[in-house]
């Protein structure tokens, strides 16, 4: 099983809940978006309030939480994206 180290970026409410702007984690490269979120919830239980209202951004493309494998590469950025409020 290949694992990769990726950077997780936290924004808005997710940054407040974790107390972090970013952290590095090592995960299997074929982890799904849902599994990755569950990994983060295990590390930061307070994130659970966002579970139904969050998507990820992997290499700056939105990915919903689902059974889709992410095909992560070493050094990829995964951002936690709470509901948007630009404009």
């Amino acid at each position: 099983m290949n694992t990769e180290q990726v950077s997780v970026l936290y924004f808005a409410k997710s940054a407040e809940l974790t107390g972090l702007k970013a952290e590095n984690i090592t995960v299997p490269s074929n982890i799904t978006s849902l599994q990755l979120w569950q990994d983060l919830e295990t590390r930061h239980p307070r994130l659970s309030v966002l579970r139904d209202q969050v998507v990820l951004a992997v290499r700056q493309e939105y990915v919903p939480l689902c059974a889709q494998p992410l095909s992560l590469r070493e050094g990829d950025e995964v951002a936690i994206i709470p509901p948007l409020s630009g404009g």
Partner: protein
Amino acid sequence: MAADQGQDLITLTTDKLSADGVSESVTCPSCGAISLFIGTTRDNFEGKKVIRLEYEAYIPMAESELRKICSDIRTKWPSVRHICIQHRLGVVPVTEASVIIGISSPHRSESLEAVKYGIDTLKATVPIWKKEIYESGQPCWKENKECLWADDGTDSKES
């Protein structure tokens, strides 16, 4: 003489925004219309007094999503000439602009429609977040109803 190359001018900044600056940046001699949208900070939400907004962004992705919006606009309204989208980050006091979109086109209907599309799509897709700071009570991260993963309860969802 070659036709003007349409420019996409995208700025994320903590500086105060200028409508004059946006308008000047999209002006061109062959365009008869410039349409502007200015989004400003309101001083109230559900009876609470708002004293300021604080914005943050996933900056590289916000820029790429804004470029996608410009590209979509040019596909839907090919006569659009220049597009300028400026979004302020950090603290935005009440009545000041948080976003300005300016678009020029030869005739008015294209730039008017494109500006509306621009702000509607920005609210749905660009990774920017705002927190409302009230005179009293806890600050609140806002959620745009246009965002597909916001809670689909009432229009004005708070978190």
